[in-house]
């Protein structure tokens, strides 16, 4: 009995605790840096009264500076707006395409399904240079539309894939009943299938939102005015002045930039997990 308990500790609680600490420490470090006064932040690590793991004089100066003296609030709004609109566009396209691929029979259905799946695997870093050219060609450079229209390239394949899988789990009989009762095919799709698919839509939406919030390289290349940037790009390019890192402010920015997406996630953990695991299902 004692041996068993010892084993449980050794092989379960200890490794789990270490993994949790390892996972969360950088976030703790973000927080503690964000509320630490500069005098403490840049103190020699050999100083006698150094307390690196907590602070004796917590301050909100960095946060206040960030919100009042930089365009950070504007970046938050830009990121939010772009993420929401591109998610909505992707869900719209993904819903329709997913339904067609899961339910309708038409020539080239297989080839089309495969090519949408292949675009799912195309990383943004493969195409950002020609895409920058195209954005310029369409006169979309330095506007939110450059991102709103390009984010769906990695969101639509994902949404389509996830929703197609979801539609396949909905029994066909439901639609057939509705059609016998006189509904059109389109009507059955809108009124019978889509409402049942709401959990799937929510999963795809949450996941797509976090992906757009995360996106970096397109936003870095397509947007140049400071006040039009998204949070990740703004923090990287505007909060470092010259070669000087203002770590307190940077960490405050990192923390505040993470909070909205973490909040959305915490409300919908289960949906997010469904989206995540569904995204890799064959």
């Amino acid at each position, binding site marked *: 009995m004692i041996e068993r308990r010892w084993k449980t500790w050794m092989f379960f609680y200890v490794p789990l605790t270490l993994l949790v600490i390892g996972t969360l420490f950088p976030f703790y470090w973000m927080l503690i840096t964000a509320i630490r006064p500069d005098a403490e932040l840049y103190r020699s690590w050999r100083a006698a009264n150094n307390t690196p793991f907590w602070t004796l004089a917590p301050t909100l100066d960095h946060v206040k500076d960030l919100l009042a003296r930089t365009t950070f609030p504007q970046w938050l709004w830009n990121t939010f707006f772009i993420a929401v609109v591109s998610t909505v566009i992707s869900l719209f396209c993904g819903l329709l395409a997913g339904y067609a691929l899961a339910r309708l029979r038409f020539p080239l259905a297989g080839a089309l399904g495969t090519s949408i799946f292949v675009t799912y695997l195309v990383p943004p870093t493969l195409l950002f240079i020609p895409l920058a050219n195209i954005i310029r060609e369409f006169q979309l450079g330095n506007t939110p539309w450059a991102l709103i229209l390009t984010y769906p390239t990695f969101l639509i394949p994902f949404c389509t894939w996830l929703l197609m899988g979801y539609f396949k789990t909905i029994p066909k009989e439901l639609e057939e009943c509705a059609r016998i009762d006189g509904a059109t095919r389109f009507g059955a799709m809108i009124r019978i299938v889509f409402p049942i698919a709401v959990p799937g839509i929510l999963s795809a939406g949450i996941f797509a939102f976090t992906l757009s919030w995360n996106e970096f390289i397109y936003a870095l290349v397509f947007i140049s005015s400071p006040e039009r940037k998204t949070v990740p790009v703004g*923090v990287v390019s505007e909060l470092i002045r010259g070669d000087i890192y203002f770590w307190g402010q940077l960490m405050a920015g990192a923390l505040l930039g993470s909070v909205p997406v973490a909040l959305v996630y915490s409300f919908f953990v289960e949906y997010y997990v469904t989206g995540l695991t569904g995204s890799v299902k064959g």
Partner: protein
Amino acid sequence: MKKPIAGGAGGAAGLEVALPHPGTSQPAPLTRFLENERLLAGLLLAPAVLLLGVFIAYPFVMGLWLSLSSTSVGNPGAFVGLQNFVKAWNDSIFRTAFWNTAFYTVWATLFKLALGMWLALLLNRHFRGKRLVRAAMLLPFIVPTVLSTFAWRWMFDPTFSVLNWVLYRSGLIVTKLPFLSDGDWALWAAIVVNTWRGMPFFAITLLAGLQTISPDLHEAASLDGANGWHRFWHVTWPLLKPVTIVVVVFSVIQTFSDFQLIYVLTGGGPANSTHLVATYAYQVGVAAGLLGEGAAISLFMFPVLLVVVWVQLRYLRRLEGA
């Protein structure tokens, strides 16, 4: 560009008007049109295909053309054949970047798989606060990579690194470790951060796979005298292999094409020693404005991605056939 989308939405709105009296009179032409499976499929797929065509297929073709031309910012350029590819291949920084990318992908994927599997096995038990732990473990994957990488950069800071502080105080080191100021150290630092960020994805998807394995199988194996390791190797692993392969393929693609982590952590430095293919393509194609050369460099990723995608497709086909 926006027109066809608006057209699609217009079609849907038009139908809403037709819906209220289904079957009461002669169906409207639009309704008849939508009853045709092929036409409806075409209509439903149009917005997705259009967006993907304009912003994936077209850039891909243009990327191919750019890579064969001497285009730079403000200069339309001319056809130069394979010159850009040859130039990249003879460029020592590019070679380093390519080698780094392979090294980074292999090690980070191995670590993510090992740690993710371990975490998944740990989370597959019942304990208090399991939901909370699982939700917390996913945080590195949710939070924008750029922002969390800044936290790591600060933890690796040459002067104020908390990691150095801990190691020094615990007597493990006498001088500071050059986390980001030495090329080899910096690449390993990037592998650590990538592992930290991607491990939850492995853990949660593998956990979902583990949960589909019936506990009866383990019980039966136990009765036959199998110990923990044997149960994992002969029962869990064979059943988990399909999910694992798919997750590994996804992760390889993401890691191989990684950009943001290196961009923030080292910027490719010190002395261009930690560039990945994507960060070097950015430096040449965007920062220096040599679009043709940059496009060629990023296309070097393509053959590798093609192989990985091919494996994935073959594998999915087999699943469908089974």
